[in-house]
């Protein structure tokens, strides 16, 4: 007979019970994330249906957005979102990389840390504060420039404006007219791009700074040892090595720019006309949602606004997928 005290326990011990409970818990939590994704996709799709059914592909190509007569086309907002985001990206990336290089490579330590911290702090400022700052500080500067553009000393500019105003009235624009101020208000597309540039700068800058700092010392030294100047080390060893990580920061910034709502809604002027002038009023998908959702009582209007959200959702997902592919391609592999 075996001694009962030495038999293996048959009941599941406490620890294996709590292990299992924890496993179910995290499974449930992880499922919630997937569920939220699926449900929001479903709801967006369901509420978009009336508008998509009514307008079909024209919703994407139609430039008219008129709640009064019930015609809705998102071409102007889709353009607005893409133009503001990519313009802000193009301006902010060189600035961000320059600031990352300054902080990581050039600045003495006593300066690098506070500057790096301040750049990160830019990301912590609420959107609404950026919006106010843009309206009260930057808009007057732009307005002053726009007004001097039309000063009586330059009659040819006024002639140009008159010509462009005619073109704009036909819902068209030319490359030249695109850069002619259409009003003296300061607000509009240009202000939205400026404010987006500042808002997304910290994302690229702080990611770029971190990946630049992580470039192994022997990569730098290998280039120095071949007789490189500091700039040659940066441009030929550090930046190529860090490029995938920097691209990750750029994509993060792009995602932020595409979705930025409040600050842009405050400054862009909320015009659903097609883009006519860099200085004129415009709108983005996010800004229209913010400005019109509360007023959209009628079914088709409401559905059209939701469809904007649906498109924005897909644009963001597509950008992220593209980013993953790009980063995978750029990552240096097999460093032994």
């Amino acid at each position: 007979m075996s001694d009962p005290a030495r038999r293996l326990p048959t009941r599941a011990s406490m620890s294996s019970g709590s292990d299992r409970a924890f496993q179910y818990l995290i499974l449930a939590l992880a499922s919630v994330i997937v569920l939220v994704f699926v449900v929001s996709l479903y709801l967006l799709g369901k509420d978009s249906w009336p508008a998509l059914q009514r307008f079909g592909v024209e919703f994407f190509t139609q430039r008219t957005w008129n709640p009064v007569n019930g015609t809705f086309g998102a071409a102007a907002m889709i353009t607005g979102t893409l133009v503001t985001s990519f313009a802000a990206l193009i301006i902010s990336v060189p600035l961000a990389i320059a600031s990352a290089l300054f902080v990581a490579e050039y600045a003495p330590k006593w300066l690098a840390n506070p500057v790096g911290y301040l750049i990160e702090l830019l990301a912590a400022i609420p959107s609404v504060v950026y919006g106010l700052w843009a309206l009260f500080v930057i808009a007057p500067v732009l307005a002053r420039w726009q007004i001097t553009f039309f000063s009586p000393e330059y009659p040819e500019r006024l002639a140009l404006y008159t010509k462009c105003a005619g073109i704009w009235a036909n819902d068209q624009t030319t490359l030249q007219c695109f850069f002619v101020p259409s009003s003296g208000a300061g607000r509009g597309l240009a202000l939205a791009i400026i404010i987006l540039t500042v808002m997304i700068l910290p994302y690229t800058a702080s990611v770029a700074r971190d990946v630049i700092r992580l470039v192994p010392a022997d990569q730098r030294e290998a280039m120095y040892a071949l007789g490189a100047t500091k700039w040659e080390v940066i441009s030929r060893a550090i930046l190529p090595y860090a490029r995938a990580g920097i691209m990750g920061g750029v994509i993060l910034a792009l995602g932020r720019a595409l979705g930025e709502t409040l600050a842009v809604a405050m400054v862009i002027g909320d015009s659903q006309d097609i883009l006519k002038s860099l200085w004129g009023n415009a709108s983005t998908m996010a800004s229209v949602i913010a400005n019109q959702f509360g007023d959209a009582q009628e079914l088709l209007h409401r559905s059209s606004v939701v469809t904007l959200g649906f498109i924005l959702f897909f644009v963001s997902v597509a950008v992220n997928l593209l980013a993953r592919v790009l980063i995978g391609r750029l990552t240096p592999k097999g460093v032994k």
Partner: protein
Amino acid sequence: MTPILSAKNVNIFYGDKQAVQNVNLDVQPGTVNALIGPSGCGKTTFLRAINRMHDLTPGARVSGQILLDGENIYAPGVDPVAMRRRVGMVFQKPNPFPTMSVFDNVVAGLKLAGMRNKDQLMAVAERSLKGAALWEEVRERLNTPATGLSGGQQQRLCIARALAVDPEILLMDEPTSALDPSSTAKIEELMTDLKKVTTIIIVTHNMHQAARVSDTTSFFLVGDLVEHGPTDQLFQSPRDERTEAYVTGRFG
């Protein structure tokens, strides 16, 4: 013979801490010179002073003179960037530039020096890769990423990259410590050939390696150059008892 490299009263400091004291050392052209000693003895620190790598470390300071072909590389007015082209360096871990092809890695130094002619670059790349005993293995894949090579091949690629600028001195900082035995053997074999075109100063942890490949050996201990002499003599009949203790394996 006039030495190609000659260190005179070299002291190296990191901040207040002295890492190398009063080193005097002559290196003859066309030889392999090993720097040995236990960890932290200052051998790598000394090696890095020879191409002014310490310029890049905040707080590091070198005093004394290091004469390259009779010219003090630490003299005021010497441009460290131009100076480093005359001294090649191979590092502990293979460190090819991962975003560049095999070819671009080899010619990286030449491009820095302003060489743009494709044929000329190709000719030097072939010569350097042959010099590093890698040509036969990579001739078909010059335009593939350098990181596709094995660890041993990568290290020989780094040697080819250093050779391409035709350095008067090639510094090697434990070049085989990250490699397997057969890759190590290839690189050791290579060093004997490289003596014909350059002068090698190698830091090694491995005393047997020093005994196998070098003509002269310098033994460092806590920042002092304890003993320097022909390798056979230093290993078989060391003058200093600390050297003897180290080479017979009593410490280190």
